[in-house]
């Protein structure tokens, strides 16, 4: 089965393919700039935004440092309220646990909400193999599912599609040839399609935005209200979440909910926030299972700088402001976690993956992501850190090391030469010899092909600054 955290191609190649799609680029530009504008506006209204961010970062750091304790507390609290916790080391364990529970409950169809973590573990495929149909309750997830597609954004999984493409898809999948390409008509069509299926469901599967250790509560935040049906109608509810989703207390939840809605969708408060814990006889699901997934997270925790990525609350603000994401979209990152957070998370969850190692390079280090991140993840610092981790890993692995050898050898030699003024000056003379290559007609140089395709090389001057200084100034 495909591992949803292993890119099928190195980033530059996948990005090239995506760049060729003009519709995709237009869709992304329109959508991200709208969310960006809204986010800036509502974040600007909060006077103590930076304090709130710092508080959230501190809570997350504290929780991650004592994760063992909080996870144990969470498990006890869930059990006390009639739920059951299952531990999954990796994606395979997680999807098997869930599939066994679903099949054990005798369900042929399950309703889903907040499906990112279940995408991470490849749940739908395993359910299909075992004869269970999964129905996505979220409009965007439904679009992705009906199109046989993959999500390309954390909050808006179908951001890569415009309303005309969605109309065509719905018209085909729902048998509605006259459907209008208007957002309200599309939402209504999805609602009717889903409602019909909701009522017959006996098992619901959800993700979680937050897990509260002291009460064993699960918080799910959504926009459409369909998720709430998924959380309340079925007899059995299975929640699948990463172990990084824990916060210590119910009060802490308040900090994160304030940050999340404004950062994610540019709303002051998200339309539906559902918080539930355990089982209440006669009301809602009568069986509750919480599947806690590691899948590489513990390993990421071991790196003091790298672990700050686990503060992430999946608001996708960093995607919406990223100039690279805006041009290539989420699929180019080859992981369920795209954009800047994906570029620092994926290689940490799959450190042995060669393609994942190209992700930290998918950034100009422009810093826009760190400016908006509501939990203050220093993404550019992490990117640089993970680049050096990648360089050292490539060095250690013979084959890939060979591929990167020219770059490594050149930079090592340059590093040595640049540390000595005499040798540095000798290299400057070389730049002058290359003068004829610069300017408008600039040749395409091997190794610099990418640069010279759309840019001229600079023309070196006749005299370096230091020579001018020596000869005329001093």
């Amino acid at each position, binding site marked *: 089965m495909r591992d949803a955290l292993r890119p099928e191609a190195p980033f530059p190649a996948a990005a090239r393919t995506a760049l060729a799609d003009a519709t995709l680029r237009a869709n992304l530009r329109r959508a991200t700039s709208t969310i960006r504008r809204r986010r800036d506006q509502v974040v600007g209204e909060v006077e103590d935004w930076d304090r709130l961010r710092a508080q959230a970062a501190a809570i997350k750091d504290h929780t991650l440092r004592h994760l063992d304790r909080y996870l144990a507390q969470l498990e006890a609290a869930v059990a006390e309220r009639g739920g059951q916790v299952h531990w999954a080391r990796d994606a395979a364990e997680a999807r098997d646990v869930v599939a066994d529970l679903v099949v054990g409950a005798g369900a042929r169809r399950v309703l889903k909400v907040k499906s990112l973590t279940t995408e991470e573990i490849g749940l739908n495929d395993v359910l299909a193999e075992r004869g269970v149909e999964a129905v996505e309750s979220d409009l965007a997830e439904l679009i992705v599912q009906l199109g046989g597609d993959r999500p390309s954004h954390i909050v808006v999984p179908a951001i890569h599609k415009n309303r005309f493409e969605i109309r065509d898809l719905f018209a085909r999948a729902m048998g509605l040839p006259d459907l209008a390409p208007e957002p309200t008509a599309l939402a209504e069509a999805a609602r009717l399609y889903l409602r019909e299926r909701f009522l017959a469901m006996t098992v619901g599967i959800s993700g979680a935005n937050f897990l509260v250790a002291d009460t064993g509560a699960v918080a799910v935040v959504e926009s459409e209200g369909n998720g709430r049906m998924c959380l309340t109608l079925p007899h059995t509810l299975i929640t699948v979440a990463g172990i990084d989703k824990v916060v210590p207390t119910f009060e802490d939840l308040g900090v994160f909910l304030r940050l999340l809605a404004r950062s994610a969708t540019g709303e002051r408060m998200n339309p539906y926030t559902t918080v539930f814990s355990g089982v209440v006889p006669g009301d809602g699901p009568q069986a509750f299972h919480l599947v806690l997934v590691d899948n590489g997270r513990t390993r990421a925790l071991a790196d003091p700088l790298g672990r700050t990525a686990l503060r992430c609350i999946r608001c996708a603000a960093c995607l919406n402001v990223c100039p690279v994401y805006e041009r290539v979209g989420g699929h180019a990152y080859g992981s369920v976690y795209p954009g800047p957070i994906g570029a620092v998370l994926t290689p940490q969850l799959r450190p042995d993956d060669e393609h994942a190692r190209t992700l930290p390079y998918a950034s100009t280090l*422009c810093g826009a992501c760190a400016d908006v991140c509501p939990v203050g993840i220093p993404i550019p610092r992490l990117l640089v850190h993970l680049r050096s*981790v990648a360089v050292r890993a490539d060095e250690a692995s013979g084959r890939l090391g060979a591929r990167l050898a020219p*770059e490594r050898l050149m930079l090592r030699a340059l*590093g040595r030469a640049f*540390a000595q003024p005499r040798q540095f000056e000798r290299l*400057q003379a070389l730049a002058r010899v290359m003068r004829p290559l610069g300017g408008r007609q600039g040749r395409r140089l091997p190794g610099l092909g*990418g640069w010279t395709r759309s*840019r001229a090389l600079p023309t070196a001057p006749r005299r370096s600054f230091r020579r*001018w200084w020596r000869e005329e100034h001093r």
Partner: protein
Amino acid sequence: MRVSLFVTCLVDTLYPAVGRATVRLLERLGVEVDFPESQTCCGQLHVNTGYRREALPMVGNFVRAFAQAEVVVAPSASCVALVRETYPELAEETGDPALAREATALVPRVYELTEFLVDRLGVTDVGARFPHRVAYHPTCHSLRALHLGDRPRRLLAAVRDMELVTVEGAESCCGFGGTFAIKNADVSAAMLSDKVGAILASGAEAVCAADSSCLMHIGGALVRRGAPVATVHLAQVLAGEDNVCGQRGVPE
């Protein structure tokens, strides 16, 4: 006050006019300028590409070259950001405690040019005249690493006979990112093309910035397209060197 100029390897090698303008500007403002000749490169390209260990000799060289300096000034936001953000750590990694101590002591004395002018010298009107229509490109490191804020614009606002035009999406990245422009050349080119389009639409005769590296990138596309827009460093505008606008693309 005596300033030690860190001219940066890029300016030293490819854009000496920027270095000369910086010297003239500072001297005009009554500052004594020194150029420690053992300086070379801060190591930004290496560090940011992931070759941290390979950058350490450059870190050592930089710290030794400027250890005696009263104040270090550089016409580059990204080089200053690298020194400020990572030198204490990097110097630590050399395993030389004396070097680490010197680096930690040096870092607070390193300024980007507009920081030095506005914060240390307390000037915003440097007495320049630049009779052109100019677009200011706030580079990512000016904006989000050094938080230069309105310092560059305040300096530019005081320049005589200059018209400052607005560029759409001014605060978005030009797509350079050091080795990003080579490793991810296609994405970089897509970003650059949007940036250059916005600059051309602004009607500017020249685009200026606090980083020669971004100007090299933007200028590379302007030259390739044969566009009549010059790239000039902020230091050149503030030195009032209007002759640079007669030339196309990259000056010198």
